[in-house]
């Protein structure tokens, strides 16, 4: 009475589905074309594209983690604060300059090897994630509220640890993560850009080919069903927040490399850029939807707009308005598409 499903499948993708998958990519191409026409000399060059990729690395890496959280139906507003805390911790672990209280002279403290400092800083991420995850699952409150609290608490911790000032460490190879591998071969990119690309592939594979990845989608799509199917929601959510915060830790390392110092006031407001990148990439804030490729494209669109506006010589405020409009446009288009599908 029912032919086998393969036979009744008319086509693998409908046009709407295809558009939905390609939507962010079309947006990226459009933005790229637009600025290439408006600034044909300075915008479409290898060195500029390399620069855009470099400028994307911090937000893009953190957005990978945020993608996991948003697919699972959560949100994390404390990313910017976590990144600042990580830069401070790395700075403090490295040999850094302090003022000697007795003599008033600047001295260099003892510190660990750069690799250990980086590791220590990165691990601050999952530590914060463990706290957030535990609070979200134990108190059963909205992640928005919990992470709004963490937003303040982590920023405060960073300021306290750094005694409310910058931490100036000695120059190490950690500062070179966002510099081209060879100045004469720009296409070799920077270590930070490579890190983002490799991590993106790992996360995409994790979401697609592992049980944990499928559980993330299931929780975001319908938590009740997921509970009914015997999945330990609390443990999975804790895992999601910790893993995501590992990416925040790595983003913090890149930010440190960019600043070459620990700054407790850095990345203020970056959480919104990160969330925007995920949303422009097609993720739904109500969960169950999102992709790594989309997120990366979203992050690229954001930095391309920033870069393009600079090339055009537009002031900062124009750039902010443009970015805001793109976010609203992306979400509106997404909603329209959803409505047509259903």
């Amino acid at each position, binding site marked *: *009475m*029912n032919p*086998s*499903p*393969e036979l*009744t*499948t*008319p086509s693998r993708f409908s046009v709407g589905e295809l558009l939905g998958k390609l939507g962010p990519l079309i947006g990226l191409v459009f933005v790229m074309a637009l600025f290439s026409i408006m600034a044909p000399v300075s915008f479409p060059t290898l060195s500029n594209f390399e620069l855009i990729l470099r400028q994307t690395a911090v937000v893009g890496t953190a957005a990978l983690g945020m993608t996991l959280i948003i697919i699972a139906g959560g949100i994390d507003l404390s990313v910017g604060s976590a990144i600042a805390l990580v830069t401070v911790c790395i700075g403090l672990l490295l040999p850094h300059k302090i003022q000697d209280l007795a003599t008033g002279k600047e001295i260099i403290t003892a510190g660990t090897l750069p690799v250990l400092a980086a590791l220590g800083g990165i691990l601050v991420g999952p530590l914060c994630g463990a706290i957030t995850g535990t609070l979200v699952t134990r108190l059963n409150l909205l992640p928005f509220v919990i992470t709004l609290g963490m937003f303040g608490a982590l920023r405060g911790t960073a300021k306290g640890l750094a005694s409310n000032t910058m931490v100036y460490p000695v120059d190490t190879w950690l500062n070179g993560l966002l510099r081209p591998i060879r100045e004469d071969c720009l296409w070799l990119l920077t270590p930070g850009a490579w890190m983002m690309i490799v991590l993106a592939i790992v996360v995409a594979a994790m979401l*697609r*080919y*592992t*049980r944990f990845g*499928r*559980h993330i*989608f*299931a929780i975001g*799509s*319908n938590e*009740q*069903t*997921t*509970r*009914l*199917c*015997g*999945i*330990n929601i609390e443990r999975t959510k804790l895992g999601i927040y910790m893993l995501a915060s590992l990416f925040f830790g790595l983003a913090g390392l890149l930010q440190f490399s960019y600043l070459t110092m620990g700054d407790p006031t850095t990345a203020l407001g970056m959480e919104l850029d990160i969330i925007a990148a995920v949303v422009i990439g097609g993720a739904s804030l109500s969960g*169950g*939807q999102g992709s790594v490729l989309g997120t990366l494209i979203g992050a690229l669109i954001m930095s391309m707009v920033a870069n393009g506006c600079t090339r055009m010589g537009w002031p900062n405020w124009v750039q902010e308005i443009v970015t805001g409009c793109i976010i609203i446009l992306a979400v509106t288009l997404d909603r329209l598409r959803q409505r047509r599908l*259903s």
Partner: protein
Amino acid sequence: MVSDRVPTQQGGYRLRMEGIHKRFGATIALAGVDLSVRGGEVLALVGENGAGKSTLMKVLSGAHPADEGRMWLDDKPYQPRNPLDARRAGVGMIYQELSLALHLSVMENILLGMEPTHGPWMDWAAIRRRAADAMAQLDRPDIPLDIPVMRLSVAEQQMVEIARSVAVGCRVLVLDEPTSSLTRKDIVHLFNLVRRLRSQGHAIVYISHFLEEVREISDRFTVLRDGQSVGGGITADVPTERIIAMMVGRTVDELYPRSPRTPGEVLLEIDGLSGPGKPRSASLTLRRGEVLGIAGLVGAGRTELLRTIFGLSQVRGGKIRVGAFTGPATPHRRWQQGVGIVSEDRKQEGLAVSLTITDNLTLSCLPRWLTPSGQDRRSVRWIDRLAIKCRGPRQTVVDLSGGNQQKVAVARLLHHDVDVLLLDEPTRGIDVGSKAQIYQVIDELACRGKAVLMVSSYLPELMGVCDRVAVMCRGVLSPTRLVSQIDERQIMAEATGSGDTP
């Protein structure tokens, strides 16, 4: 067809409904309903779940327009376009789920939408006076008018809602299952109030499953079955069994396959099980190769029993054993022990409707590493086996018909290869073809030595599919009996609390 119609008496009725028809798409919800009630009278509206009581009341309250039929209020044609229209005309509805603004005060709730004002300013004195009048009419001046409604008990909140209808001068008051969440003591208070309103000349329509309550409170009754009014009469003149016969009296024309089954070892045993509210006490044993049905009314605690067994609600008392495992367990453990559940709420809980068929079907037992195409191959097996109509395993569940969605929910248990299947209303709201397929699957599973515990509100289905049945009434489960030793009337009598429950 039973025809205990009340002799129609022209005039004198507060509310008359005649020949009401209503269809939703292909589903016929109401197919000719007549109902009438006088002022100073309590009319009970009875019928099984899905008989059309709620739809009829939605027509009365203006939430759904009728496709055919006419209504009169005090002999004037009555055609509400929306609920506000109905309320202005004097038809007050008290639903099971109360509709109060929990943060507002009692008096604000009573006059919500009709607040007396001086220009833009609230006339607090008038609000207080009118709210106090309404409460006095209900004989409940003890309920404070100033506190937020959320600080009141459920019974008191119900009073506020009734007061709201009284305050706007309602002529017809409809109470839909008003006692389902009340304690015995509150029910007595409510009945006193209903009698009081009746003596003040209100016409009251009282909807209930509980025939004992119907007997206690109503003057007349009307029975709905399959969207038609099939009978009625003066409550005091008609024995309860006769009312039950009117509610149940339909022919069993579906085919229930039943192959010879041999009960094996005990797979599930519960003894005196109780949960946070319901169940209060439930005992049963379920063997391999057996289908055990749980009958009862909506809200009796049948769903809660399955959820307690499965670890979705807390166990408060009693013993529970699944195979070799004793004691309560989480859903995660239950799946590992070979127990699976199909939720009664397919859209909210049973399925993640925005995910694909494959995602839903395999969610409970994903391997640690997987490939999407490998998972699809696994789910195609079940799509073929259950004849799920779809474009393919990647189609999202939301696009499927109700019957096919339910088959996905059942297929999840088959894919997991569980031994004990807990099925909560497995055929609710689905087409006959899908129903027959689900019955077929249940029979095959029992023959292969699986054990099925099934909750259903549709008695012919329970009688046709199950080997044994038990009846749940107000959280207490009766002993199980072979289907050959019990009939639908007995079940209905026990479910409505009017039988001699042991």
